[in-house]
């Protein structure tokens, strides 16, 4: 992907552009909600959106599975 990856495991914020750091996924998205440390292990969970604001897909992901990238 064309995105420049930054450090992992940092706390993600609403508006951050992210990509999955897990093999098998090549989408990029935007954090639209910080769900807090709701992970069973205390990890951060975020809601991200892939695609358009109106038609995009939204779902929750562990922040550990994402890398912040330049917008």
């Amino acid at each position, binding site marked *: 992907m064309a995105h420049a990856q930054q450090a992992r495991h940092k706390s993600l914020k609403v508006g951050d552009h992210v990509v999955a750091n*897990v093999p098998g996924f090549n989408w990029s998205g935007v954090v639209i909600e910080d769900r807090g440390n709701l992970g*069973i292990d205390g990890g951060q969970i975020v809601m991200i959106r892939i695609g358009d604001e109106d038609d995009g897909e939204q779902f929750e992901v*562990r922040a550990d599975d994402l890398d912040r990238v330049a917008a």
Partner: protein
Amino acid sequence: MASESLREWQTDAWAAFDEIEYAHRAVGGTKPGRRFLTQQLNYAYTALLAARFQGFARSLHTQAVNAVALGAHNATYRLLLQRNLTRHRALERHNAHPNSIAEDFARLGLDIWTLVDQERSGNEERRRKLWALITWRNAIAHDDINGKLEKGALEPTTISLGTCRGWRSALNVLATSLDKVAADQCQTLGLPRPW
């Protein structure tokens, strides 16, 4: 042990409800206008109960999904589960009425209300109170109280502080039962008990 979602319900949400109770006492007295003032407080209490319960239910679903996803054998499978179990959730689009909760927890293989009803006697009646709360919340939020009353859709037909307290009490028990049933299901799926 309780989930983080239930702990938040029992701390943050309860504190918010207590603020309304405090405001009720502060408005006290018998002067003309009190009835109107407390009525608006009761409407605010109703909307707050519905909103916080939706937040609780959504967070509990998030935590249950996370527990299931962490049982995956690798990161790719984990993310696949996480994504597909949380996309287009009913609790993102609708109030936390029983059907929304049932729809989302069914993704985890749960017939949630059957199990919640079995978990504690009286939960079926508490679920009816949840329906009444959500119906009232919608009437308030959409400025449709009179229209709903004319259709006989609101039960009870007026809201008092006692009504709100009754709903709050019912939600407290339902939250505890939902929390337990979700944890039980993780074990049924062969996973460690998450809370």
